[in-house]
C-alpha cells in the first residue's frame, strides 16, 4: 500500500467513524430512555397527578398538561413576532437595520436559558407577584422568537427571485407578493421551523424553574403555578425514591417522544398535506 492510499484509508475511516459515533450516541441515548422508560409506563402514569412523597403510584398527567399548555401559549405569543421579524429581515436584505435585527436574533438565540429564566423571574414573576405558567410561556417565547425569525428568514431567502419578479410584473402589490408568493412557497419550511422551535422550548427546564414553579395538581389555569415534563424529570431524577426515579425515566421517554414527534412527525405530515393542497 502506498503512503497516499494509506493516508486516504485512515482519513476515510476517521470520517466514517465520526459519522458512526454520531448515530451511536443518539441510538444509545434513545435506546436507554426507551428501555428504562417504557417499563414503568401504565395508564395511571398518563392520567393521574403525583402521589404524596414516598407513596407509590401516581402519574405525570399534570406535567403533560403543563408542557402542552406552556409550549402552545409560548408558540402563540412568539409565532407572529418571529414570522414578522423574519419577513422583515428577508424583505430588507442588505439594509442596515435588517442586519442589526438579524444580529440581535442570533445574540438572543445564544442567551443561555437560565438567564432567560432569571429574566422571567425578575420582570414577570416579581412584577406580578406570583409564579405562573403564563410567565413561563412568555419567557419561553423569548427563546421561540429568534429561532422562528431566523428560520423564516432563511426559508424566505430560498424563494426564487424569479417567482417574485413574475408576481410584480403582473402588478401585484408588495404585501400581496409576500403573502401569496413568498410565504406560500416557503410555507412548509416555515411550518417545520415553527415545529422545531416548539420542540426546542418544550424541552427547556431552566426558564421554568424560575417561572412555572411546578405544581402537583392538574392545573389548566395559565395564571397559576404549573408543572411541565422537564421540571418533573428534574425533581424526580434527583429524588431518593426509586419509584420516582423510574417515573423520571418514563417522563423522559414521553418528553423525547413528544419532541421527536414535533420535530419530525409533524414536519413530514404537514409538508405532505401542504404539497397535496398546493
Amino acid at each position: 500500500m502506498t503512503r497516499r492510499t494509506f493516508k486516504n484509508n485512515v482519513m476515510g475511516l476517521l470520517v466514517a467513524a465520526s459519522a458512526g459515533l454520531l448515530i451511536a450516541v443518539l441510538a444509545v441515548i434513545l435506546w436507554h430512555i426507551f428501555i428504562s422508560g417504557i417499563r414503568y409506563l401504565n395508564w395511571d402514569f398518563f392520567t393521574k397527578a403525583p402521589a404524596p412523597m414516598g407513596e407509590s403510584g401516581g402519574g405525570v398527567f399534570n406535567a403533560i398538561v403543563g408542557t402542552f399548555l406552556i409550549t402552545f401559549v409560548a408558540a402563540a405569543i412568539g409565532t407572529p413576532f418571529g414570522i414578522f421579524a423574519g419577513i422583515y429581515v428577508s424583505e430588507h436584505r442588505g439594509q442596515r437595520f435588517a442586519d442589526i435585527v438579524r444580529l440581535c436574533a442570533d445574540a438572543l438565540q445564544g442567551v443561555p436559558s437560565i438567564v432567560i429564566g432569571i429574566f422571567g423571574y425578575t420582570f414577570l414573576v416579581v412584577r406580578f407577584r406570583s409564579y405562573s405558567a403564563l410567565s413561563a410561556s412568555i419567557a419561553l417565547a423569548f427563546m421561540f422568537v429568534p429561532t422562528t425569525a431566523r428560520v423564516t428568514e432563511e426559508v424566505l431567502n430560498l424563494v426564487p427571485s424569479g417567482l417574485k419578479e413574475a408576481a410584480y410584473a403582473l402588478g401585484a402589490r408588495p404585501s400581496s407578493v409576500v403573502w401569496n408568493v413568498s410565504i406560500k412557497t416557503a410555507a412548509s419550511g416555515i411550518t417545520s421551523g415553527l415545529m422545531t422551535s416548539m420542540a426546542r422550548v418544550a424541552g427547556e427546564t431552566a426558564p421554568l424553574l424560575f417561572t412555572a414553579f411546578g405544581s402537583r395538581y392538574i392545573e389548566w389555569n395559565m395564571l397559576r403555578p404549573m408543572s411541565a415534563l422537564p421540571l418533573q424529570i428534574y425533581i424526580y431524577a434527583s429524588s431518593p425514591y426509586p419509584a420516582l426515579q423510574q417515573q423520571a425515566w418514563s417522563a423522559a421517554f414521553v418528553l423525547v417522544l413528544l419532541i421527536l414527534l414535533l420535530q419530525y412527525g409533524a414536519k413530514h405530515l404537514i409538508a405532505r398535506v401542504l404539497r397535496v393542497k398546493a
Partner: protein
Amino acid sequence: MSNIKRMTTCILIFGLIIGLTGCQATAGTPVKDLAIAGSTFAEPLYLKQFDAWYQKTQVKAVYGALSSSGALRALQDRTIDIGATDVLLTAADEARLPASVLTIPTVLGAVAVCVNLPGSPALRMDAALLSAVFRGDVKTWDDARIAALNPMVKLPATPIVVLHRADGSGTTNIFTTYLAATDQTWNDKIGAGSLVQWPTGVGVSSNAGMAAMIRQTSGSIGYLEHTFAVQSSLTPVALRNRSGAFVLPSVDSIQAAVPPDLPEDLRGTLLNRPGTAAYPIVSFTWLVLYKDQAYDGRTRERAAAIYDLVSWIIGDGQALAEPLQYSPLPDRVRKTAMSLLNQLSWGGKSIK
C-alpha cells in the same frame, strides 16, 4: 388564503383561547390556589398535608421545595403566599422584609446523621466525633476515634466521604448550630449558619438530593431530615445526648427533647436537651407570612384561604405528622401557634 396563514391562525387562536379561559377563571371566585415555598426539611409533611387539604377543600396549595433561604428570598419578592423555614428569622432578616411577619411553628423534626457502609452497622457518635468527621479531621472509617465509640463494629479501612448541603439550608443551620453549641473547635473554626464554609466534602442540594446521594455513595456520611432517612431506608447514627445516652432519631426521642418550660415566644433552642431519651438535634419548623395580608392588591378571600389552611395544619393536620416521623406540636405550643395565627389581619381587621 394560504396554508401557513391557516396554520398560524390555528396556533394563535388555540393559544389565545387557553390564555383567556385561564384568565377568566380567577376573577371574583373564591381563592382556590396558594403558593407556599421553602424548607425541604418539612417537605414530605407539607406535601402530604396539602394533598389532604386539596381532597377536603379543593384548594390547591402548591409547594416549592426551594430551601429555607429560598423562602426568605421569595417572601421578600412577595411571589409566594407563605414561606416555610426551619430557622427563625433573625432581626436582620426581618429588617429586609417590607412589613412585619408572623412566624408560626408547624411541627417538630429531627436531623438524622446517616451513613452508607457495607452491612449497615449501627454506629454511635458524639458531638466531638461528628465535628471531627465533618471537618475532615477523621478521614477513614477505621479511625481510632470512631472505633473507640464502636468497639463491637468491624469498621472498613475505606475513606469517609463527607456529604453536606450546598444550598442555603435550614437543615444545615440546625446541624451546624448543634455542632457549634456542643463542640468548641467547630464553633471556632466553622460556626453555624444556613451556608457555612465546609473544609471538606461534597455539596448536595435539598434533603431529597442528600438522601439520594447517601444511597448512591458507599462510605458516605451526611445529615438530613429524619423522614427522608426513613423513607429511603438509610442507616441513622445513634448520637450521644447531654445525659450521655446514645439515642436514635424517632418520634419519641424528638418529643423527649421538648422541655416542659418552653418560653412563650418559642425561641428557646431544642438542641442538646437533657433527658436520657432526648435526641440531640431537634428543631421546630415554621411557616412565615405577612401579618397584614392587604398588600399588592390581595383579596380578603385569599387571606381567609391562608388562615384556613394554616389553622388546619396546626390543628387537625397534625395527625399526619407522626406517620411521617415528625412529632406533632405539644398542646401548649399548638395554643401559642393558634394565638399567633389569630393576629393575621387584612387591612387592619382580624381574619379570624
